[in-house]
């Protein structure tokens, strides 16, 4: 009998999963339906470049349906709730969609309203985020006019998408004001709730060194309790205050609203508890999740979603054929870290191995944890790879879901 696979979310994870599954399963074997609330697929890594005039929003947005293979149904509607016991999804247009397999790929949403004062006075005037297309464009105009003062770059709390992006923003801001020859009039400060520049020890140390070299002050363990846009200050829960002329922050993230409205599906923050290795959710054996929507202890990033997608596809097929699931995902993640002046770093890690220096994917590959032009070119090329190889679900030779250890240097303990 023909099965129906419903995929909630037509972003990075949903699109890749749909395309990969369409290639694996015949049209008379399975119907594949992708649901999304809009038809704008944003290449999210591109948002970082918009505030600096290095990219425009229209260059990083494409229609969602165009990224899907033939014989995949795209339906524009918002999911209202998942009824796990009935294997049905309720949609905002009133439709009820039964499924044999459900894939949760609705990513995260920003919840700036959860931080006191963040969306009050000064929001999009001197308090910005570049994590939305609109916010990135508004910030671009503000930076254009900025001719001196203190800029605080901040993330309110983890988890956030692309946890390295706020640091990249700080690096690029240093470059941007040097290009404009007013760097000496701009004080740059990076304020994070973490106890270092980044989450993982070796990378954190190197990145802290880069901040210092670029003259960017680092303030750690700063947990924002309140944003006072009128008084131009950030107030931490422990009472510390930071003045700013311009604040660039990353608001808190939560899962999609329907997750919270679906009993048994998500946790308190709306993320979906998911098996670390199989990508099956804890909620039901025929419900899978990937990408930013999960609660997995790895980065919320496109590379993670890509590696997860390979295992997820395999396991959906195995579930349909009654085979045992593959425990294949190891938490593999990698990302380029743009550091300005046409250079970038690359980090590669998984659940157990933190980012280490060396080369990727083998000893002759791109340098890891070290600034290089090659990595910057890699970062720029990646947008092409994203639209033309990752989303269509083509394999990239030499880059698999498991993290390679060859080429990595173990720290001398």
């Amino acid at each position: 009998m023909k099965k129906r696979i419903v995929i909630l979310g037509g972003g990075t994870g949903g699109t890749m999963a749909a395309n990969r599954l369409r290639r694996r399963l015949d049209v008379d074997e399975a119907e594949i339906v992708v649901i999304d609330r809009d038809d704008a697929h944003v290449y999210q890594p591109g948002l970082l470049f918009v505030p600096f005039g290095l990219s425009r929003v229209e260059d990083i947005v494409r229609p969602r349906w165009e990224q899907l293979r033939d014989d995949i149904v795209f339906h524009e509607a918002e999911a209202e709730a998942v009824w796990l016991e009935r294997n049905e999804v309720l949609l905002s247009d009133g439709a009820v969609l039964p499924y044999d397999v459900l894939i949760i790929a609705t990513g995260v949403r920003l919840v700036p309203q959860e931080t006191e004062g963040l969306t009050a006075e000064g929001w999009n005037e001197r308090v910005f985020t570049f994590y939305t297309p609109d916010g990135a464009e508004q910030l671009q105009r503000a930076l254009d006019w900025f001719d001196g003062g203190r800029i605080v770059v901040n993330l309110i709390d983890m988890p956030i998408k692309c946890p390295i992006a706020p640091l990249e923003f700080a690096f690029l801001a240093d470059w941007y004001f040097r290009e404009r020859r007013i760097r000496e009039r701009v004080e740059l400060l990076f304020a994070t709730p973490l106890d270092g520049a980044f989450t993982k020890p070796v990378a954190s140390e190197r990145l802290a060194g880069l901040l210092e070299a670029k003259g960017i002050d680092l303030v750690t363990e700063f947990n924002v309790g309140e944003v006072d846009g009128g008084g131009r200050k950030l107030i931490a829960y422990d009472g510390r205050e930071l003045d700013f002329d311009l604040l660039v922050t990353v608001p808190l993230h939560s899962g999609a609203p329907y997750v919270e409205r679906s009993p048994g599906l998500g946790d308190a923050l709306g993320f979906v508890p998911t098996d670390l290795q199989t990508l099956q959710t804890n909620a039901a054996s025929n419900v899978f999740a990937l990408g930013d929507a999960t609660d997995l202890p790895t980065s919320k990033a496109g590379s993670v979603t890509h590696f997860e997608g390979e295992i997820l596809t395999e396991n959906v097929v195995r579930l349909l054929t009654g085979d045992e699931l593959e425990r294949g995902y190891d938490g593999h993640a990698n990302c380029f870290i743009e550091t300005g002046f046409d250079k970038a770093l690359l980090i590669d890690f998984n659940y157990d191995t933190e980012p280490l220096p060396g080369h990727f994917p083998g000893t002759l590959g791109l340098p890891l944890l070290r600034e290089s032009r090659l990595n910057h070119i890699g970062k720029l090329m990646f947008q092409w790879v994203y639209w033309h190889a990752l989303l269509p679900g083509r394999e990239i030779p030499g880059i698999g879901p498991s993290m390679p250890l060859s080429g990595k240097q173990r720290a001398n303990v």
Partner: protein
Amino acid sequence: VTKEDEMTTLLTADAVVVERDAEGFVLRPEQWNETIAEGIARENGGSGLTDRHWLVVRFMRERYLTTGSAPSIRSLGKESGVPIKELYQLFPKGPAKLAAKIGGIPKPRGCI
């Protein structure tokens, strides 16, 4: 301070040696008891644990023992019944970290 000194151990009334890491987190949660909790709280500048402290500490510990990971400060604020502002009054600086330390569970891994 040498590395040796940082590897602190704590002796309880029952003469059980509790193994801890360099930052003072209990390595084996089953070695923990309430006397140890009070001791760790004192070590970190606390003066006696109130019912509100215990509510948070027990919530953290139970969550860790059932799910294998300690909740973040945000979920603590949403689920423990103690608002984040109060959490910072009860456990100054880092509530999730300090409550985990007092509750005898490993340092919360935070996020990646």
